[in-house]
């Protein structure tokens, strides 16, 4: 499987994961490690963070999709990730609509604009 592309990983609530898995992104590899994490009410932040870091460390993952409310829980880990591969995409969730002001990428972009710079 050398020539195949990279995978899309998902960290999200049940419906988000189900939807993306229906779309065909899911994989269980030889070690039975999935490329998705269904976050339930009792999933701990440590578990989420560890999974996120393990996805970052895997070299067969190209994009990580994560619900924004989960991204908020591990914001420091997301902010620390600066590489372009894997790309981290924050997506809305059922209970929490997407808020651009929380998005790491847009916050970085916004951070560089101060009125004095462009006089």
């Amino acid at each position: 499987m050398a020539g195949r592309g990279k995978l899309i990983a998902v960290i999200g609530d049940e419906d988000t994961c189900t939807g993306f898995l229906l779309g065909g992104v899911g994989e269980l590899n030889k070690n039975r490690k999935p490329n998705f994490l269904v976050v339930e009410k009792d999933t701990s932040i440590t578990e989420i963070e560890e999974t996120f870091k393990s996805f970052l460390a895997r070299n067969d993952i190209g994009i990580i999709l994560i619900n924004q409310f989960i991204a908020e829980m591990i914001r420091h880990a997301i902010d620390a990730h600066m590489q372009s591969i894997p790309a981290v995409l924050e997506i809305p969730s059922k209970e929490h609509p997407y808020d651009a002001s929380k998005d790491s990428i847009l916050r970085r972009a916004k951070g560089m604009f101060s009125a004095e710079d462009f006089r």
Partner: protein
Amino acid sequence: MGVSDVEEASLSLDEKLLRFMDQLELLEEKRAKLNSLIEQGWFSISKARYSMGNKQVSALQYASEIEPLVFVNSRRLENCGVEFCTERPNQERNTSSSIEDIGPKESGVRRRNKPKNDAAEKEASKDASSEKTPELNPVNESHQNPQQDPLKWFGILVPQSLKQAQSSFKQVIELSAEIATLQDAISNSRQELSLSLKNKQTAAERVGSPLGQGDKLNGSGESKQKDSGGEVPIKESL
């Protein structure tokens, strides 16, 4: 000479800023589309759950073997950016055999009651079957292996709304690759922008005191640094 340097730097800065703004606008547009598609997908899943039962369409029903049906290819562009594009390796096959074949895979009539006395015929049929097997095997493999459609995890006769959910999430996946490309382009433009901003500042400093304007720029710059001490390290880190 010095002034033209500053002008040049300003022009390139303007150009980059405009490009950056265009990219942000495009990102916002795509984000809005992505959000509405995801919403549509959830709505369809909920509708499917409503018609199938409360406990249906849940994480418990995922298959024990899951094979990916979609991949992303990343490609480095000349300007150091990365482009992501999705790929569905067996989409063609799926579309060509969209009508499911139910029943025996072998074509023709099968002889179940073979006459025992006809040894020669038996031999011939053996030969034929041994010849046939290598032909049949790949077909069978391609039919069994085709990473099962995830729709089947939730039942054989799934409601139309679940199929709609699948199609909207497929679109979301494609769109998310585009957004990932755009996000990368935006962070690159941001770096370029901060670099040219620095260039402009050094050019302005070089022009220095002979120009009144330069003086003003320098002076205001210093006071700015004092005022917003916290701002500088952030920019550095960018």
